């Protein structure tokens, strides 16, 4: 198998690709697929990785390097083959697998990111609903935890298509933090990803689409911009 990154060709022996450091579960049946991206943004490539291998993914974005172009050509490869080749081109990020969800996170996350993802919810009750709706409930619970006065409700308008009306839930989590809940949502869906982009320093009063996005995969795979919802202006506002 050959993996091409930029102008370099890296030969990877499939037999050697045991990703001990990333903690991949070894009990899954090995799924192989061609994975070819050329000069795609790293974020697009990560979402495509989840789409091709039908694995839920979480991505915590810390800077614009996530939009840098990457090139990977892998033939009949496993996800364990492809992910390191992708991350080699994203030196500020690392990955880990948490109960079946591959989480790509910055090696040095900014304080607002840590603050948001680590907010611990005493109880989280997800109704039977699609992942976008459950994401809104999570936002409501977050508000109840961080606002001095619990909100009397919320109202929103969206112009984004709900790509997938598949209902998950109900489920209950106790003592979980925001990242845990996001991962539980995509894990239960099975073909979805969560993205957290540059939250503001103050979480109080922030609308949900400024905090995270929940994306359902397409089959055949599509670029992220075709899937929905990412507020790219948030990325544009990153400081180098």
């Amino acid at each position, binding site marked *: 198998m050959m993996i091409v990154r930029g102008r370099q060709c890296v030969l990877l022996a499939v037999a050697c690709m045991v990703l001990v450091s990333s903690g991949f579960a070894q009990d899954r049946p090995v799924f192989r697929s061609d994975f070819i991206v050329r000069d795609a943004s790293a974020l697009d490539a990560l979402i495509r990785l989840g789409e091709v291998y039908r694995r839920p993914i979480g991505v915590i974005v810390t800077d614009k390097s996530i939009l840098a172009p990457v090139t990977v050509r892998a033939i009949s490869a496993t996800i364990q083959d492809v992910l390191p080749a992708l991350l080699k081109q994203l030196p500020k990020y690392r990955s880990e697998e948490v109960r079946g969800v591959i989480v790509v996170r910055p090696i040095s996350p900014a304080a607002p990111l840590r603050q948001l993802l680590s907010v611990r919810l005493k109880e989280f*009750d997800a*109704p*039977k*609903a699609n992942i976008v*709706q*459950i994401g*809104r*409930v999570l936002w*409501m*619970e977050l508000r*109840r935890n961080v606002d001095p006065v619990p*909100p*009397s*409700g*919320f*109202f*929103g*308008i*969206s*112009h*984004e*298509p*709900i790509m997938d009306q598949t209902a998950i839930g109900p489920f209950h989590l106790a003592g979980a933090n925001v990242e845990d809940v996001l991962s539980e949502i995509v894990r239960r869906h099975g073909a979805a990803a969560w993205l957290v982009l540059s939250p503001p320093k103050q979480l109080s*009063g922030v*609308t*949900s*689409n400024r905090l995270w996005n929940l994306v359902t995969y397409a089959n055949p795979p599509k670029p992220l911009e075709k899937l929905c919802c990412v507020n790219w202006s948030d990325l544009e506002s990153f400081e180098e």
Partner: protein
Amino acid sequence: MAIASSYDSTGRYGAQTPFNDQLAPFWAGGQWQVDATHNSIVAITNGGSKQTTARLTLHYNGGTSNYVIEQPIAAGDQMWLNFADLIQKSVPDKNGNKLPAGLTSGTYDLRDLGGENAGSLFEGKVALDKTLGHLAYGCMMCCGYDSAFIDPDSLAFGVGEDAYLTVRGHNACSLEWEDVTQYYDTWSSGDTSIATLSAATAHGVSAGQTQSNASGLVPKGDGYESHHCPREQMRAQLGFLYVRIPFRGALVTTQFSRPNACPAGYAGWDRLIWERVADQFGIVFVRDNVNIEEVVTAGQNGLNLPVGNIQTGSGPTHDAGIFLDEFYFCSSVCGSGGTGETDLTQVLFYGGVPVLLPNSIALRCNSVAWNGQ
């Protein structure tokens, strides 16, 4: 019609050349004959100063069949065509058609395809009679245009947008409508505060309706005149320009209207509609990938929603101008079994341009009403 003649010393065998010395873009009415005793040879001369392309069309079978030859001719140069050769050597035309072997006569017309430079061709024909008898030849007649109109006769476009017009002229010989835009060099708008118009291009300035006008020097031959092919000033029948503005939202359909998923202690509603934006004439905009955004303000707030912090979004139009408008809320008032109504005003922005009439949104515990619907 001028005719140049040449005969042998006996005066029994000869050739005559009827020819036109008028430059024109379109000539019609030529007759030709080819049989055991006749042949027709046509010479087409480019009398202009630039290369042009001539199209000679032979009509036969009572005008039901055509044979088309197109050929560039340099300035001052000639194209010669021997009709007997075309038939006997089965020379294919530009469309691959061949003249039938037994064909003996028909008519033809000549067109200058030189665009703005059209009008530089003249034609002469040598009609050969191989035995005694009269010569068979015809005259080329100048074909011009007897009327014209601006096409399209009504054109709608947005503020800041360009839109393109043509002029269609009625050919006095073929009776067909043809693009004659190249002759029209004077364009004007009835109201430049609504739209400007020049060089067949209209530009939207502000919402409203006005007229489009065009005039130019157009060939006026009527198919009977062979000595003159004059150009005369002709005004095209006026058209109408409609400069559109985003005026109101138009409901297409409701995808769903259902209870919203809310945390414990809250209840609410979730409605997703498909919508388009219509202009002041009631015509919907059908462009895709136009970004939709909004500004929302609140009136009465019986559901006690945090209306000072409303989550709004943006999204593109698709499928001929459709965009999604989803309204969702959770309220502690509804969650505790109460009732009430929260009223909102949604000003849409269509590609950054505000839609003039805002949408009114009424939220109740078991419904979301959009403009009363």
